[in-house]
């Protein structure tokens, strides 16, 4: 009797745990209807003629190969590898591939250098010429980027999608700006300025179309270079009416889609959601163990709840002054207190990911506002030169322009430093100073 009872008890225990484990492995939540609605809007296909992002991706194609063709092949390889579950093999192959075209030489930094790029180009024409000569094909490719009518990023391919190598693009842009600054130093200013304007327009359009933080931050960094060059050229001599109009066009105020990060953060969120959806395809081992440990819908719902609670879109649409106050408040405990909850039972890996990964978007939003402040500094430098403002009258000049060209975060006037002959304001994070030398 006792032995039979023991056997039945053991069988019952084994059955219970088998059922429990299979149940936990098979169960996943239903996606929140709101999330489904938010994700329903289709995005344009990435691999399509005319998409500049593909040319960005193939920018470092081997010599003689079209960046678009190379980028398209890279993107197709990624999608095929993802479907086949061979992303790590693809990543290893990409790391081993050294056939790409690399930038040759070193572009100097101009931070804190009086006269900036214009002064450097005038003082070192041979170095600028060598940089241009050594990177001829990359510079040609850089010019070619502007010929694409649109720019769509592969947001729906998730975070593991290939990312363009932005470093050679930025360096090519710097060389181009150096060449233009050099030409401007030789006499006629309007031609080079016009080309700086065209290039700045291109990067403004990239900033408008960007759906991911990395490309948006790159666009901001490159736009800052354009503003610096425009300010250096505009502040180095008296401009005629036509030249001043071009500089003012380069330094014109941003519209909300260029500087606000709402669109980019929506793209980032969508990219995160797609990554969480695609994760089981990329995980090893596929199958029962992955299904037991990770549930895409439950993980996506958790992140969606956070996304709504943190309300980053509203914060990204704030004015710099409202944003500064919000950031100050946020530093006193905005992070959500996350604890492993009951979903850990059926989604342990997803739940741990959710508890650990908490992205703080405040510093990224601040970069946009910092750039707006820098644009104001550049504009002030050009205006001060155009109006022949003396050193003694500079603070009064800055005070008189504080409404439209003041510190974006405080609304007060920019700070004049007569010793360094610079105007500045503290950046959004409070740790750095955005500064321009007069």
């Amino acid at each position, binding site marked *: 009797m*006792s*032995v039979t*009872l*023991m056997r039945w*008890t*053991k069988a019952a*225990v084994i059955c219970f*745990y088998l059922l*429990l484990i299979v149940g936990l492995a098979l169960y996943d939540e239903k996606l929140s209807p709101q999330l489904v609605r938010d994700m329903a809007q289709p995005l344009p296909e990435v691999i399509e003629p005319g998409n500049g992002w593909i040319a960005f991706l193939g920018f470092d194609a081997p010599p003689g190969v079209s960046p678009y063709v190379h980028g398209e092949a890279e993107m197709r390889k990624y999608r095929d590898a993802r479907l086949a579950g061979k992303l790590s093999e693809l990543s290893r192959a990409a790391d081993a591939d050294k056939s790409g075209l690399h930038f040759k030489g070193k572009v100097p930094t101009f931070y804190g250098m009086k006269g900036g790029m214009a002064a450097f180009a005038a003082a070192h024409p041979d170095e600028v010429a060598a940089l241009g000569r050594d990177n001829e094909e990359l510079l040609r490719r850089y010019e070619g980027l502007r010929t694409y009518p649109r720019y769509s990023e592969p947001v729906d391919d998730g975070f593991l999608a290939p990312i363009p190598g932005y470093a050679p693009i930025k360096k090519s842009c710097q060389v181009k700006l150096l060449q233009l600054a050099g030409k401007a130093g030789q006499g006629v200013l309007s031609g080079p300025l016009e080309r700086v304007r065209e290039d700045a327009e291109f990067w403004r359009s990239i900033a408008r179309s960007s759906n991911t933080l990395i490309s948006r931050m790159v666009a901001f960094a490159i736009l800052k270079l354009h503003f610096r060059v425009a300010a250096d050229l505009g502040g180095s001599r008296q401009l005629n009416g036509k030249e001043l109009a071009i500089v003012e066009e380069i330094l014109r105020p941003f519209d909300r889609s260029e500087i606000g990060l709402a669109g980019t953060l929506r793209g980032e969120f969508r990219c995160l959601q797609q990554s969480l959806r695609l994760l089981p395809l990329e995980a*090893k*081992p*596929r*199958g029962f*163990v992955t299904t037991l440990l990770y549930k895409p819908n439950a993980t996506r719902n958790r992140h969606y709840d956070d996304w709504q609670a943190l309300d980053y879109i509203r914060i990204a649409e704030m004015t710099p002054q409202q944003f500064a106050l919000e950031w100050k408040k946020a530093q006193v405990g905005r992070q959500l*207190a996350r*604890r*492993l*909850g*009951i979903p*850990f*039972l059926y989604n342990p890996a997803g739940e741990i990911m959710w*508890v650990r990964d908490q992205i703080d978007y405040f510093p990224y939003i601040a970069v946009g506002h910092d750039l707006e402040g820098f644009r104001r500094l550049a504009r002030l430098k050009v205006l001060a030169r155009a109006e022949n403002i003396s050193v003694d009258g500079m603070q009064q000049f800055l005070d008189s322009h504080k409404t439209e060209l003041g510190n974006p975060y405080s609304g007060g006037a920019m700070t004049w430093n007569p010793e360094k002959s610079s105007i500045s304001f503290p950046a959004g994070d409070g740790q750095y100073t955005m500064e321009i030398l007069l």
Partner: protein
Amino acid sequence: MKRTSLVHLAFGLRSVDEIAWARTGIAAVIVNAVSGMVLVAAPVTPMSLESIATPALGALLIILFGPLIGFFCSSIYARLEWFVGTRLGGKASLDDLYGIFAWSFLPLSVALLLCTLLFSFLDALKVPLETVTMIAASIPSLVIGYCSLRNYCSNVIAVQQYTRLRGAVSLVLTFALFLMVIMVAGGFLLLILRYGMSENLKALLPRP
């Protein structure tokens, strides 16, 4: 039926054996489940106290997976003890060893939980965990743990009708074998997690 306190169970040298004989196998199964729950409570309770997990999750983990751990450990360990014992001329049946393990395992789990709770309590009170404090906090658990182990060993030796030396060899061999089983199982799990049941792992397996 005579009621037995945990204190008697932990400290009385012959108590485990007496209880194991007096109680049914079902009681041993239940005791193993409870021991497993106490064992799982040891890491889970501080997680809830330190706001890593919600209390609801902690309770569910203890209720659902505690018994599983208890059944798993007791079944494997008792079977290994019996396997080694039969080869060394032991006279005990599997049920005897299962019962002795069940009743010895309970105070050991309680000792572990007690130790964890004491450390969490000291941590919550911001008491600096220096060596002296740690040793002092561990003393109750060490005493209970030592008595449980002593009782287990003594009862196994008695029920197997071993000499002291043979008993010691049997206990050491069983423990080493248990560690090996755990390591092999853990290694295999890690291998699956690392490579998956893909071509990489299949390549490691012998081909027919």
